[in-house]
Structures are given as C-alpha cells and as structure tokens.
C-alpha cells in the first residue's frame, strides 16, 4: 500500500507537463484557439467590409427597407405596386416563393406516391416506364428541366389561338388563365363549416376508436368523416344561396381580361419542380414499402387479418416511418430549389430581392442576411417538425 501512496502525485503541486497533458486543459486550449481564429476572421472581414463600404460611399443598416423600391414586379400573389417599399418587396418575394412551393409540394407528394407504387408494380411495362422516368429525371440537372419547359412553353400559341378548355381555362404563350373565384356574402360561413366539419370528423374518429376499444363495435368513422367535411359546407353553401361566383377570363383585343392569370414562368417552374422532385418522393415511397419485411405481412395474414387491414394496420404504419423523413426533406428541397426561378424570370424571393433589390439599393449584406434568414427559418421549422415526428414514431427499444 505504501508504494501506491508514494506514487500518487500530489494535486497541489502540478508540474507544467502535467498541466499541458491534462485532457481538460487541452480541450479548453483547443476551443480557445478555434474561438480566437473565428473571431479574428470575423473581425478581419468586418474591418475590410467597413473600409470597402466607406470607400464606395455606401451605408449599412436596415433603413432602406422603408424606402420606395420603385420597380415593378411581373406577377405577385399579394398586392404590389411600383411605389411600395423594399420590405414589401421582401414579402412579395416570400409569398411568390411559398405559393409555387406549396403547389409543387402537393403535386410532388401525390405524383410521387403514384410513381413509387408503379415502380413496384408486378406489371412489367408499368414498372419499366416508372423506372425510366425516374432515371431520366434525376440524372438531368433541375435547371435544365426548368429551362427546357420554359423554352418549350414559348412555342405555345399566341393568345388569339389559345388552347381552351370548357371556355374557362386558356393556355397560351403568356401563361395560364383560369376562372377566379369571387366569394359573395356569407361565403365565410361556408369556410367556417369546413373547419367545423373537420373538427367534428376528428371528434367522431376519436370517439369511434374509443368505443371500438371499449366494446369491440366498429363505427364507419371514415365515411362519416367524409360526409361531415364535404356535406356540411355543401349544405351551408346551398342554404345561403350559393354565394360564390367565378370571374371568367375572356379574350379582349390581344390578351385575356378577367379571371386569374398564371404566368408562363410559374407554369414552367412548377412543372419542372414537380417532374424533378417526384422522383425523390417516388424513391422514398418505394424504399419505405420495401423496408417492411415480407414476414410482417405473413404474420398479419396468419393472424387472420384481411389484406386491406394488413395494409392499414401493419404495413403502412411501418412504411411511413421510412417514408416521412425523406419526404419532408424533399419538401425542404422543393422550397430551396424554387429559387432557380430566377433563371426564367419568375419573381421569387431570390429574383426580386437578392437580385433586383440588391442591384438597386446596394445593401448586399442586409439583403443576403434577410434572404438566408427566410430559408433558414423554413428549414429549421421543417427539421423541428421532422424531429418531432421521429420522436413520435421511434420504435421503443432497449
């Protein structure tokens, strides 16, 4: 024992070598080095920037946001006039980015499910067409898709020879013209009825599940729900005397008047985004379905569950675990890739703010920061949702 005692180094008398070789000391030392390097670099960049700005006689700060932008924007989903402020331009850009992303995400998700299932089809022709689609789309850059459809759409007929459908939808080389809904008095009640229908349908589902668990009796909750969500608003709609009219586009002179116009760039962008991102959704669906082992289906059949119940209760819940994370990150990529709109002149956030506004105002740093802030907010929101989902469905293991 005494030998050990002697060998124990005294804590209060530490030599330099002991301090240098201490794990904690080294950890702190490395961290200080990194922190100093980062701060020094930032300092260097900031100093340079300040000097450059001074040399060019430019100011910094966010005051420019309240000054007039003074340029027009080809198309916007929220109101915009040439006299509005830069901040308003920012909002217009965000709205335009979100609207195209929104439609692209919905279409991508639906089409992706179809293509994903097609790839697994036992029908040889169907499976081959789906996989050819996947290969062609994903091996060509998205920007090429966008330019390609934009170029092709320029070959559409002029407004006078528009491709029409039901005399209400018109497609020509300026864009797509659709009837615009004009809500009349009391239409908000119909909207409220939709919300009530959804709430009640949810309540019925919860109640039906509880009852089935308690008594074993089943209740057709799904169809009741459909009836509530569709029927309730319809009832209100007709009871109120159909308070919704449509403003139809009509050819006046060289162009269409009335209705809602969707510019050609929007259509081409949406089309390309959907075609391209469908591939990744399809691959996620395919991988998700394949990830559920055949043994699960067999086990479920051997318990006597019908194929439809097997799919609903065993296969889909497990496949969704594998499908949802890549699906959500695909949505994220749709939002990010909608920024390629700039190549064909669709006024999205990057085009109106990072290009036009930046060129006009010269406030590079503020504008870059604001654009990045928007995309980071979207991304962090989506990944927070994803983390929440992952936590929710995580298979409990030892």
């Amino acid at each position: 024992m005494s030998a050990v005692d002697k060998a124990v180094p005294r804590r209060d008398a530490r030599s330099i070598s002991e301090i240098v070789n201490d794990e904690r000391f080294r950890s702190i030392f490395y961290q200080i080095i990194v922190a100093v390097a980062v701060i020094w670099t930032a300092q260097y960049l900031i100093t340079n920037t300040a000097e450059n700005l001074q040399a060019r006689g430019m100011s910094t700060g966010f005051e420019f946001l309240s000054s007039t932008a003074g340029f027009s924007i080809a198309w916007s989903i929220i109101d915009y006039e040439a006299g509005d402020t830069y901040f308003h331009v920012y909002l217009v850009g965000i709205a335009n980015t979100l609207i195209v992303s929104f439609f692209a995400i919905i279409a991508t998700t639906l089409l992706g499910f179809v293509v994903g299932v097609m790839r697994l089809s036992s029908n040889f022709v169907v499976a081959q067409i789906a996989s050819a689609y996947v290969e062609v789309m994903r091996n060509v850059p998205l920007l090429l898709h966008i330019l390609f459809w934009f170029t092709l759409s320029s070959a559409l007929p002029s407004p006078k020879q528009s491709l029409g459908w039901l005399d209400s939808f018109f497609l020509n080389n300026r864009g797509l013209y659709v009837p615009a809904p004009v809500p009349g008095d009391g239409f908000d009640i119909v909207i409220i009825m939709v919300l009530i229908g959804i709430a009640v349908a949810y309540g019925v589902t919860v109640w039906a599940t509880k009852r089935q668990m308690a008594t074993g009796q089943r209740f057709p909750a799904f169809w009741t729900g459909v009836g509530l969500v569709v029927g309730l608003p319809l009832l209100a709609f007709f009871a109120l005397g159909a308070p919704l009219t449509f403003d139809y586009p009509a050819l006046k002179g060289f162009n269409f008047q009335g209705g809602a116009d969707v510019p050609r760039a929007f259509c081409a962008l949406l089309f390309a985004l959907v075609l391209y991102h469908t591939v990744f959704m399809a691959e996620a669906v395919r991988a998700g379905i394949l990830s559920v082992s055949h043994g699960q289906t067999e086990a479920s059949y051997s318990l006597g569950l019908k194929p439809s119940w097997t799919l609903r209760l065993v296969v889909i819940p497990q496949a969704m675990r594998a499908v949802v994370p890549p699906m959500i990150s695909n949505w994220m990529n749709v939002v990010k890739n909608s920024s390629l709109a700039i190549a064909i002149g669709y006024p999205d956030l990057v085009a109106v703010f990072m290009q036009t506004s930046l060129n006009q105002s010269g406030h590079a740093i503020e504008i870059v920061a604001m654009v990045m802030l928007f995309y980071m907010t979207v991304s962090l929101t989506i990944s927070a949702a994803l983390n929440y989902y992952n936590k929710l469905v995580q298979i409990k293991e030892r």
Partner: protein
Amino acid sequence: MTDATQSDTAFRPKPSLPPPANTVGVVGWLRKNLFGGPIDTILTLLGVYLLYLIVQFAVEYGIINAVWTADTYRECLDINLGEGACWAGIGAWFNSMMYGRYPDEEQWRVNLGGIILLLWLIPFWLPKVTGKIQVGMSAVLTFPFLAASMFIGGDTGIFLHVMASIALTLFVAVWLHVAACYVLGRSLPELLISITGFTDKDDRLHKYVLLGAFAVGFVIALIYHMSWDLVEVQTTIWGGLFLTLVISGIGIASALPNGILLALGRRSKMPVIRVFCTSFIELFRSVPLITILFMAVTMMPLFLPVEFNPPKLAMVIVAVCIFAAAYMAETVRGGLQAVNKGQYEAAQSMGLSFWKMMALIVMPQALKLMIPNIVGSFMGLMKDTTLVSIIGLYDILLMGKAAGQNPSWLGFHTEPLLFTASIFFVLCFAMSKYSQHLERTIGGGYGRR
C-alpha cells in the same frame, strides 16, 4: 417382359410432368407480368401505346426530320419547318459547349489534363495494385495544382511550380508503382528499398530512402516544369463542360477533407468547436446554392481588402467548396455513425491517440461505407454546378444559351438544352449505376462469411 414384372414391386417415382403450359415460358411470363387481369391488361396496353408515342416522336424529331448540315438556324427551319431537330447547330457549337472560349490551339492542354487525371485514377480498378488509398490521396491532393498550372499557363509563380512538380513526381511514381506491382509483384517502396540495399537495415531508415528518391524525382520534375512555356489563358474565357467539370471537380476534392473535419467537429465533445461546426453545416445546408453563389459574388469583394480583386471563377469556386463541404460533412457523419462503437473502444484501449484512431481504424471503415454516397454527392454537385450560369459564368448551359442568341443561330434553344441534358444523363447515369454496383459489392462487408 421379366424386367417389367420384377420392377413392378420396386418404387418407381412418378415422372415429373411439365407445368401447365400457360404458367411458364414466354406465355407464362406474359401472363404473369403483362396480362394478369383486366386492369393489368389495360395498363399494359396504355403503357405500350405511351411508349409508342414517345418513340415515334423521338424518331421523327431526332432522326427523320432532323437536319444534320446547315450553316444557320434559318437554313434548318427552311428544310424541316421546325418539325425536327437542327443537329447541325450542335456541330457548329460543339467546341464552344465543351471548352467555352478557350483558344482552339490551346485546347490540347485541357485534354491532356483530363487524360492525366484518368490515368491517375486507373490504378483503382487494377486488382494487383496495392496502396490504393495513397494513390487516390495523391491524385486528390496534388492534381488540382498540376491542372491549374497547365490550364492557366503563363508565369505561374513559385508555389504552383513546386506543387505541380510534386504532382508530376507522384504521378510518375504511381505508374512506376503500378508497373512494379504487375511486373515484379512488389510495391514501389519495397523495390526502392531493396535496390538501395536497405532491406536489412532498420525500418526507421527506410523512409530516408523513399524521401531521397522523391527528392531526386522532384528536382527533375521541377526543372522540367520550369521549362514549360505555355501561353496564359485567363479564367474569364474558360467555359463549357470543361468549366463545369473544373468547378465540380475542385468542389468534390475539397469537400472530402473539409467535410471530414466538419463532421469530426460536429461530433466533438468540445462545445465551442461543436457549436461552430454545427452552425456552419446547418447554415449552408439550409439555404439554396444560388443564394450562396450570390453571396460569394456580391459580398466577397466587400469582405476582402480592396487590392484583392479575385476573378469571378475563384469566388464561385469558394462558394461551391463551402456548399459541398457542408453537405459532405453530413455524409461523413453518417459514415462515422455506421462504424461500430466497439471499434472506437478497441482502438482506445490499445492506446491509440485520437488522430491515429481516426486515420488507422475509423476512417478506412467509414470511407468504404461512404463510397456510394460520395459518388452520389459528386453527381449532385455536378448537376448543381449548372447554377453558375445564373450568375454569368459561361458553363455548358450558358454557352448553349449564347448559341441561340448568335445572329446566325437566333432561336436555336431546344437542341443545346437536349444536348446538354444528354451529356449530364450519360455522365450521371453511368456514375449512379457504378455506385449501385459498388454498394452491392462492398455492402456485404469484409471477407467471405
């Protein structure tokens, strides 16, 4: 007769009958895969009809009505009334779409650079060659400098002279090594050691032999490289597919080391380093590449001292490297997580330091697992590189667009896009098939069991 009566008592297995005719063979296959039921049959017919339409259109547009020789786009339209492709234009613009405005008489430099890179990578596929990791590292770390000195030319400065000479030395060494492996069945270092008679000496002395041999090679290479007299070609006139490959090549080569560092930083126990790396990765992964490119070209001139005036290409490459590193970091992190925790523990319990553990135990395993993902990242980066056309670099896409704005070729838009698309398709499709092949062959782990 007697045979027959005797064998009556013995067990005679029933002869195997052929299966019902409609379950096997061509008919069986058709029934199973194409005409399983009414819906199946309808789908099959619809699919075949769709394919017929596509193929018919493609043949008519691309071959039957296509124009192969013409001097202007108008000429093409006069011949086929716009109902077929004008491949004549691709012929006229091919050189521009490959090299941009790189002078015709200097394009051999680009081609030679490409050939050297290919030759450098060939040993990867030669089974007898040892030390493939070192071969790959030498290519990734030094080839860019050789390429830069070749492609830019002019007075390159001493740093590029030295680096390019190192690259030349290593390139020759790699191929001597390949020859040694195939002819003598031993590696180049072993050969050098045995020639100089150091085999029996202490291992610790061996490295001096190798260093000496390298030094001799380096001096020769340096003298040779100094004698080069190449015309300077400004990066501003680089373009076409060449530019696309330069940007994505540098991007991927830098992404691997940077990505490894970032991934290690993100997994570090030191909070300052972890927070820094995590924010870097998350920031650049959450914004679109185009915003990073805009940031590079608008903010970098502000960030740097006035006397620095980096060419646009340099700023774009920095942006692409940052972007690629952030993405690669996540790929590497996935690879590191896939390595069993026991491997780390075993290495630690043997007393290996952190960096030795990473270099000898963890990284070799992680990198092998990551190869398919790295190929995928490279494909993604190559596709993303087309975005540089938006900020005005004449890559293959913008060069194709420029073709349609040339007075003689006004309106010539679709064909360059189709041509570019088919180039990307061929490159990416080949790479993705190869990466799937790798996934199958190395996914099974090590050894046979």
